[in-house]
C-alpha cells in the first residue's frame, strides 16, 4: 500500500524540478514530466488493483500523524481508487496527447499541468473540507492558466470568465466553510456530517441552512449546472481541445466526487434538489446542444449534460432511491471520461471547429471509425458502459416508481443522440464547405495512439461490464466479434471480404440453427438465410466499401441475436446493436445524411420507448419467443404494452411514425436498401410477435389496443401503397411499398388468431423474397444507369432481360395475384380478419392491395417497357452476383408458389398451440373456416392454360416481323424523341388528383413542426449565453436564487 502522499510529493517535487531539468538537458523535462504522471497513475492503479483483489483495506492516511479534527486526513476507498485511477489515466493520456504543445510553451505549462493533476487527485482523496477547498482552488487556478495558455483573445477571455466564476464559487464556499466550522468546530467531512445532525433544533440550526446552501451552491457552480454554466461553455469552446478534454473529463469528475462527499453534509433534504438540478441541466444542455454548429461548444453542452445526469444519479443514489447506483455512476463516468476526451482529442486532430466541415475526417477511415465508436459510446449504444448504466438506471427508476424522471432522462438522451449524430452525419457525408481546410487531416502518431488507446480502454470496460450484466454474454458477443474479426480483412479486396462475411454467416447459421425451434428458428433461418442471399448480392462491389461488411455482418448478427434473446436486456441489447449498425449502413448512401439522421433519431426514440416498456414491465422475462409456452402467457399490463407497441411501431414505420422510412430505405446504398427493406423491417414484426406472445389478450383494454394496432396496420398498408404509386424514384417507390407491406403483417398479427399469425409470418417470408428481389433488381438497374428516376429509364427489357424477369416475378408476387406466393398471404390475411370480425379493415387491406397494382405496373413499365433511351442503348445486364442472388430468390418464390404447404405447414407448427386451430390441410388444399385454397391446383391450371394458349397463339399467328421502338402508330406521325414518347413521369396524376384530399403529408408536417419547435426552443435558450461576463455572473446569482427556492421546497 503506497500512501497517497506520494502523489502530492511527486507532483509538487517534479513541478519545482522541471525548470532546473530544462536547463540541464534539452528534452529531459518532457520525459520526467511524463514519468511523473505515470508514477501518479501507477499509484492509483495500484490501489485499485489491491482493493479489487482484496489485498488491502480501505486506507486512511493522517497527514500530520494526528487524527482529525487535528489534522487533515485522506482516504483511499474503492470509490476514490476508481476515480483517481480513471482521472490519472485520462490525464496521462491527455499529457501524451498534449506533449508537443506543452513543451512548446515551456516548462511552466507542464508545471501547471502537474498542479492541475495534483489538485484533482486531492479533491478526490481529501476528507477535510477546507483542504478540499484548497485543492479545488489549485485545480481551478491551474486550469484558468491552462485555458489561457493559448494566449489569444478567446482563450484569455475564457480564462478570465472561468476565474470570475471560480472566485464567486470560492467566496461562497469559504463563507460556507467558515460558518460550518463555527457551528461544528471541525473541518473533517465525516465528523461534520455526524455533528450536523445533533444541531437540529438548537439555536445554531438557524445558521446551518444558509451555510449548507452556500456550500452546495458553490459546488453546483463548479459542477456547471444550468443556467450558471455559460462560462464553462466558453472554456470548452476556446481552450485547446486537449485541455478541454481534461477539464471535461477530469476536473468535472473530480468536482462530481467532491459533491458526492459534500452532499451528505448538506443533509437528505438536498438530495432531491440536487437531483432535480442535475436532470434539468441534463435536459436543458442537450436541448440547447441541438442548435450548436461548433464542435467544441457542442461537446461542452454534452459534457455539462453528462455531469447533470451524473449528479442526478449520485444524488438519487445517496437518497437511497436508486439501488446499484454506484455501478450506474461509474459506468456513466468512465464512459463519459473516455468518450468525451476521445472526441475532444479528435477535434484537436482535425483542427476543424465547425461541424459542417467535418467531412475532412471522412478520408481517414481509422479516425472516422474512432469517432463512430465514441459517438456510439456517448449515445449509450451497446456494448459501451453507458448502455448498461442507462439500462440499469431506467430499470431502477421504474421499479422505484420514478416514471417522470425516466421521461426527462430519455428526452435528454434523445436530444443528445440527435446532435451527436448530426455531427457524425456531417463527418461521414458532409464534405467540406469551403476549401480552406480541404486537405487531409493528419494526426501526429502520439495523438492517434492516444485516441486509439482511449477507444481500446473503452472497449475493454465495455467488455467487462457486458460480462457482468448480461446473461449468455458469449452468444450476445458473437455479432460484435464477427464484425471486429472482419475489420482485420479491411485491407483485402471487397470481394474477399464479402466471401468471408458470407462464410461467416453461413457457418454461424450452421452452428446455431439446428439447435433451435419455434419462433427463434423461424426468424433466425429467415434473417441468416436472407442475410446470406443478400450478401451474395453485394459481391459485385468493386469500390473499397470500407466498413461496409463489418457493419452488415453486425446487423445480421444482431438480428439473429434479437431472435435468440431470452431476456429483456438481451433483446434490447440486440435491438440497439441493430439500430446502430443499420444506421451506419444507411449513412453510407450518397445523399443519406438527412435520412440517416432522421432514422437514427426515430430509432432512438423507438428504442427508448421499448426500454421504458421493458422497465415498466418490471422483471418480466421478455424474448425467447416464449418457446415451449403453450398459449399466451398474458403477463403484461397495459402501460408496458402501449410503450412497447409504440416502440415497435416506430420500427415497422407505422403510419404517423413512418417519416424516417422512405428516406432511410431509399437513400441507403442500393444493395443495402434491399437488406434494410427486406430483412431489417421484419425486426419490428419480430418485436410484435414477442410482445403479443407475452401480452396475450387477457389484460384490460386489450381489445381496443389490438384493434388500434390493427387499424394502424391497415392504414399503413393503404397509405404505403398510395404513396408508392406517386413516387418518381424507383427506390422510394419500393420503400413506400415496404412500409405498406409491413402494415399487412402488423394487421395480421393484431388479429390474434392462428390464421392471422400464419398470414403475418408467411407474408414476412414472402415479402422478404419479393421485396429483396425487387430491390436487388432495381439496384442492378440503378448501378448500370446511374439514376433512380424511373422516367429517365425505359425500354431496358431488351438490354437487361434477366433483371426484367426478376421484376416481373417480383411484382406478380407482390401484387398478390395468383399463382405466386403473394396471394397466399392475402388469402390468409382476409380469412384471419373475417374470423376476427374486422371486415372494414379487411376491405381497406383489399383496396390497398389493388392500389399496389398501380405502383407494380409503374415500376415495371417505366423501367423496362416503353421507349428505350439512347443514353442507355449500350447498357449491360446487371452484375452477375446481383443476378445470382435474384435467381435464388426467384427459385424460392417458385417453389413456395408451387407447393405453399412446404412453407405454411412449418409456420403453422411454429405458431402452434397458442391459438385455436382454424387452418387444416387436406392434401394440397388449405381450409379455413371460410374458404379454401389449393395453391398447387391453381398453379397447375394456370400453367396448363398458359402453355396451351401460347401454343394456340403460335399456331394461329403469322410469323411476326420484329420491329423497333419507333415502329408505333403515332397518329400518322413519327415520335420525335424517346424521351418525349415514354409516358412515365407523373404517371398516376388523375389518381393523385382524385385522392388529393388525403395525400397531404400530415405526419411529415407534424414531425417537422416538432423538430422546428425543438430547434426554436434550443435557439432561444442558447441566447442566454451571451458571452458577457456580467451576464454570466447574473446567471450565477439567478441560479443561486432558484437553488435556494428549490432547497426550501426540498427541505420542507
Amino acid at each position, binding site marked *: 500500500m503506497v500512501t497517497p502522499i506520494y502523489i502530492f510529493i511527486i507532483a509538487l517535487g517534479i513541478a519545482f524540478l522541471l525548470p532546473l531539468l530544462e536547463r540541464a538537458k534539452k528534452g529531459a523535462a518532457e520525459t520526467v514530466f511524463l514519468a511523473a504522471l505515470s508514477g501518479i497513475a501507477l499509484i492509483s492503479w495500484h490501489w485499485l488493483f489491491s482493493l479489487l483483489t482484496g489485498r488491502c483495506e480501505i486506507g486512511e492516511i493522517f497527514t500530520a500523524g494526528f487524527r482529525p479534527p487535528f489534522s487533515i486526513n485522506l482516504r483511499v476507498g474503492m470509490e476514490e481508487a476508481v476515480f483517481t485511477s480513471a482521472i490519472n489515466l485520462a490525464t496521462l493520456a491527455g499529457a501524451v496527447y498534449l506533449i508537443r504543445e506543452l513543451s512548446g510553451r515551456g516548462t511552466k505549462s507542464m508545471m501547471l499541468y502537474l498542479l492541475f493533476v495534483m489538485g484533482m487527485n486531492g479533491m478526490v482523496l481529501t476528507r477535510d473540507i477546507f483542504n478540499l477547498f484548497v485543492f479545488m482552488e489549485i485545480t481551478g487556478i491551474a486550469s484558468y492558466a491552462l485555458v489561457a495558455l493559448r494566449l489569444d483573445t478567446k482563450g484569455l477571455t475564457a480564462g478570465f470568465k472561468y476565474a470570475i466564476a471560480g472566485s464567486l464559487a470560492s467566496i461562497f464556499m469559504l463563507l460556507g466553510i467558515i460558518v460550518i466550522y463555527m457551528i461544528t468546530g471541525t473541518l473533517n467531512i465525516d465528523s461534520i456530517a455526524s455533528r450536523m445532525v445533533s444541531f437540529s433544533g438548537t439555536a445554531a440550526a438557524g445558521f446551518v441552512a444558509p451555510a449548507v446552501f452556500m456550500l452546495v451552491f458553490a459546488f453546483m457552480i463548479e459542477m456547471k449546472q444550468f443556467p450558471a454554466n455559460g462560462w464553462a461553455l466558453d472554456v470548452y469552446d476556446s481552450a485547446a481541445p486537449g485541455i478541454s478534454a481534461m477539464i471535461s473529463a477530469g476536473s468535472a469528475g473530480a468536482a462530481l466526487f467532491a459533491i458526492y462527499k459534500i452532499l451528505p453534509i448538506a443533509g437528505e433534504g438536498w438530495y432531491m434538489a440536487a437531483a432535480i438540478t442535475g436532470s434539468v441541466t441534463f435536459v436543458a444542455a442537450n436541448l440547447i446542444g441541438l442548435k450548436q454548429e461548433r464542435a467544441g461548444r457542442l461537446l461542452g453542452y454534452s459534457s455539462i449534460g453528462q455531469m447533470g445526469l451524473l449528479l442526478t444519479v449520485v444524488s438519487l443514489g445517496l437518497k437511497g432511491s436508486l439501488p446499484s447506483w454506484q455501478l450506474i455512476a461509474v459506468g456513466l463516468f468512465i464512459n463519459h471520461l473516455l468518450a468525451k476526451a476521445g472526441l475532444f482529442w479528435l477535434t484537436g486532430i482535425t483542427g476543424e471547429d465547425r461541424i459542417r466541415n467535418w467531412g475532412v475526417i471522412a478520408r481517414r477511415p481509422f479516425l472516422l471509425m474512432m469517432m463512430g465508436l465514441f459517438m456510439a459510446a456517448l449515445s449509450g449504444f451497446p456494448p459501451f458502459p453507458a448502455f448498461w448504466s442507462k439500462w440499469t438506471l431506467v430499470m431502477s427508476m421504474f421499479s422505484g416508481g420514478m416514471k417522470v424522471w425516466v421521461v426527462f432522462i430519455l428526452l435528454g438522451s434523445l436530444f443528445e443522440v440527435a446532435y451527436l449524430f448530426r455531427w457524425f452525419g456531417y463527418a461521414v457525408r458532409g464534405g467540406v464547405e469551403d476549401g480552406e481546410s480541404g486537405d487531409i487531416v493528419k494526426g501526429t502518431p502520439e495523438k492517434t495512439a492516444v485516441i486509439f488507446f482511449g477507444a481500446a480502454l473503452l472497449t475493454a470496460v465495455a467488455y467487462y461490464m457486458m460480462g457482468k450484466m448480461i446473461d449468455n454474454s458469449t452468444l450476445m458477443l458473437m455479432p460484435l466479434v464477427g464484425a471486429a474479426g472482419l475489420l482485420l480483412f479491411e485491407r483485402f479486396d471487397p470481394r474477399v471480404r464479402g466471401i468471408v462475411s458470407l462464410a461467416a454467416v453461413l457457418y454461424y447459421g450452421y452452428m446455431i440453427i439446428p439447435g433451435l425451434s419455434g419462433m427463434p428458428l423461424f426468424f433466425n433461418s429467415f434473417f441468416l438465410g436472407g442475410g446470406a442471399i443478400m450478401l451474395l448480392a453485394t459481391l459485385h462491389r468493386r469500390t473499397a466499401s470500407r466498413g461496409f461488411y463489418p457493419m452488415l455482418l453486425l446487423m445480421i448478427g444482431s438480428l439473429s441475436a434479437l431472435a435468440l434473446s431470452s431476456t429483456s436486456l438481451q433483446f434490447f441489447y440486440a435491438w440497439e446493436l441493430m439500430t446502430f449498425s443499420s444506421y451506419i449502413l444507411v449513412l453510407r448512401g450518397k445523399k443519406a445524411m438527412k435520412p440517416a439522421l432522421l432514422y437514427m433519431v426515430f430509432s432512438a426514440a423507438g428504442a427508448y420507448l421499448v426500454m421504458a416498456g421493458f422497465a415498466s414491465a418490471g422483471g418480466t422475462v421478455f424474448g425467447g419467443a416464449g418457446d415451449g409456452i403453450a398459449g399466451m402467457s398474458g403477463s403484461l399490463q397495459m402501460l408496458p404494452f402501449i410503450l412497447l407497441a409504440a416502440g415497435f411501431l416506430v420500427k415497422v414505420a407505422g403510419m404517423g411514425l413512418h417519416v424516417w422510412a422512405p428516406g432511410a430505405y431509399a437513400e441507403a446504398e442500393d444493395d443495402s436498401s434491399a437488406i434494410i427493406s427486406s430483412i431489417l423491417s421484419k425486426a419490428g414484426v419480430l418485436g410484435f410477435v414477442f410482445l403479443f406472445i407475452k401480452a396475450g389478450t387477457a389484460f384490460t383494454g386489450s381489445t381496443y389496443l389490438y384493434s388500434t394496432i390493427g387499424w394502424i396496420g391497415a392504414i399503413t398498408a393503404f397509405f404505403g401503397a398510395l404513396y408508392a404509386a406517386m413516387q418518381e424514384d424507383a427506390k422510394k417507390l419500393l420503400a413506400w411499398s415496404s412500409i405498406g407491406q409491413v402494415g399487412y403483417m402488423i394487421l395480421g398479427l393484431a388479429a390474434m388468431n392462428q390464421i392471422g399469425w400464419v398470414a403475418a409470418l408467411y407474408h414476412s417470408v414472402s415479402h422478404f423474397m419479393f421485396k429483396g428481389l425487387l430491390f436487388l433488381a432495381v439496384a442492378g438497374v440503378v448501378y448500370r444507369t446511374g439514376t433512380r428516376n424511373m422516367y429517365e429509364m425505359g425500354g431496358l*427489357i431488351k438490354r437487361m432481360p434477366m433483371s426484367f424477369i426478376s421484376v*416481373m416475378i417480383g*411484382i*406478380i408476387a407482390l*401484387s*398478390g*395475384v*395468383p399463382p405466386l406466393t403473394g*396471394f397466399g398471404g*392475402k*388469402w390468409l390475411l382476409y*380469412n384471419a380478419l*373475417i374470423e376476427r*370480425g374486422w*371486415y*372494414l379493415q*379487411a*376491405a381497406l387491406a*383489399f*383496396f390497398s392491395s*389493388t*392500389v399496389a*397494382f398501380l405502383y407494380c*405496373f409503374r415500376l*415495371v*413499365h417505366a423501367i423496362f*417497357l*416503353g421507349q*428505350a433511351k439512347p443514353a442507355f442503348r449500350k447498357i449491360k445486364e446487371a452484375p452477375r452476383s446481383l443476378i445470382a442472388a435474384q435467381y435464388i430468390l426467384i427459385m424460392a418464390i417458385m417453389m413456395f408458389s408451387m407447393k405453399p404447404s412446404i412453407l405454411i405447414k412449418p409456420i403453422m407448427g411454429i405458431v402452434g398451440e397458442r391459438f385455436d386451430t382454424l387452418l387444416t390441410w387436406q392434401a394440397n*388444399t388449405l381450409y379455413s373456416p*371460410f*374458404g*379454401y*385454397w389449393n395453391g398447387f*391446383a*391453381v398453379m397447375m*391450371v*394456370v400453367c396448363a*392454360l398458359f402453355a396451351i*394458349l*401460347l401454343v394456340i*397463339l403460335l399456331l394461329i399467328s*403469322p410469323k*411476326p416481323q*420484329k*420491329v423497333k*421502338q*419507333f*415502329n*408505333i*402508330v*403515332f397518329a400518322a406521325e413519327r415520335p420525335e424523341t424517346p424521351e418525349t*414518347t415514354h*409516358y412515365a413521369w407523373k*404517371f*398516376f396524376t*388523375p*389518381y393523385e388528383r*382524385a*385522392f388529393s384530399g388525403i395525400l397531404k403529408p400530415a405526419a411529415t408536417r407534424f414531425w417537422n413542426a416538432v423538430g422546428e419547435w425543438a430547434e426554436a426552443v434550443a435557439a432561444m435558450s442558447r441566447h442566454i449565453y451571451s458571452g458577457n461576463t456580467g451576464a454570466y455572473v447574473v446567471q450565477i446569482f439567478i441560479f443561486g436564487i432558484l437553488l435556494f427556492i428549490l432547497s426550501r421546497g426540498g427541505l420542507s
Partner: protein
Amino acid sequence: MMEVLKQAGYSLATLMVVMNYGLLLVGLVTIIVARVHGRIGPPIWQPYINILKTLSMRTALSHGIMFYLGPVFRIVGGIGLLFFMPVVYGSSWMQNFSFAGDVILVVYFVFFGMLGMALGAAESGHPYSAIGIMRGLAQNTAAELPFALALMALAAQHQTLSITDIVAAQQGGIAHWNMITNPVATLAGMLAFFGMMMHSPFDVHLAPQEIPIGPPTEFHSSYLALMQTNRSIFHAAKLILFMNLFFGGATSIFVMVVKTFALLMVVVFAGVVFPRYRVEQSIRWFIRIPLAVGILAVVISAWK
C-alpha cells in the same frame, strides 16, 4: 388422374358454352346500342366474323416478347377467372376448378389478365397504351373498393368465402337471394360492377377519339383475335361472378343466361344514357357514394 382429365374436359365444355354465349352477348350489345341510336346495327354474329377476320390477317409484327405474351396473359386471366368459379350451381360439369379456391382467388384472378395485358401493351412503347393502362388500372382499383366492401358484407352475412356455399345459401327462391337478404351489399356491389364491366360511363381507358383505343392500340392480327375472344369470356365470367354473389346463382344454363343477360342490360342501358367520366371523376365517384354504401353494408351485415 382420370378425375382431373374429366374435370378438364368438363371445363373445356363450359368454356365453349360461355365463350359462345359471351360472343353472342357482345353482338347483342352492339345491336342494342345501335337501336338506341336509331340504327339497325350489325348482325348478331358479327363478333364471330370479326374474330375470323382478324385471324385471317396474313402479317403480324412484334414489339418484343412481352408484347407477344401479353394477349396470352390476358386470355389466361379471362379463362382462369371462369375456371375457378362454379358456373351453374349443382351441375356436375359446370363446377370447373372451383375446388382450387374461393371468391378471393377469383377476385384476384381478375387482375392476372389485366397485369399481363398491361405488360404486353406497355412493351409496345406506345404512349397511348400507357395512358390507357394508367386510366384502366386507376379506375379499376377505385371500383374495387366498394366491391371489396360488398364482398366483406357477404362474408359477414354468410360466414363463408366459398362461392358454392354463397350460392347454396341463396337457393330456394328469390327471397333468399342476397339481393333481398342483403340489399345494401348488393347495391354496393352493383355500383362497383359498373366500373368493373368497363362500359360507358367508365370506359375512358379506351377513349377512341383521344388515345386511339388505349391499351390495345398496337395489337392486331391474331393477338387481337385472342383479345376479342377474351373480351367475350371475361365479360361473361364477370357477369357469372356477380350472378353467383348477389342474384342466387343459377341452377341451369337457361337460368344463367337469363340472369346474366338481365345483369348486362343494367350496365348497357346505363352506358347508353350516361356520358363518359374522366378518370379522376370516376375515382371520386367511387370513393363517395359507393364507398359510403359499402361501409353501410359492412356495418349492417356485421352488426347482424
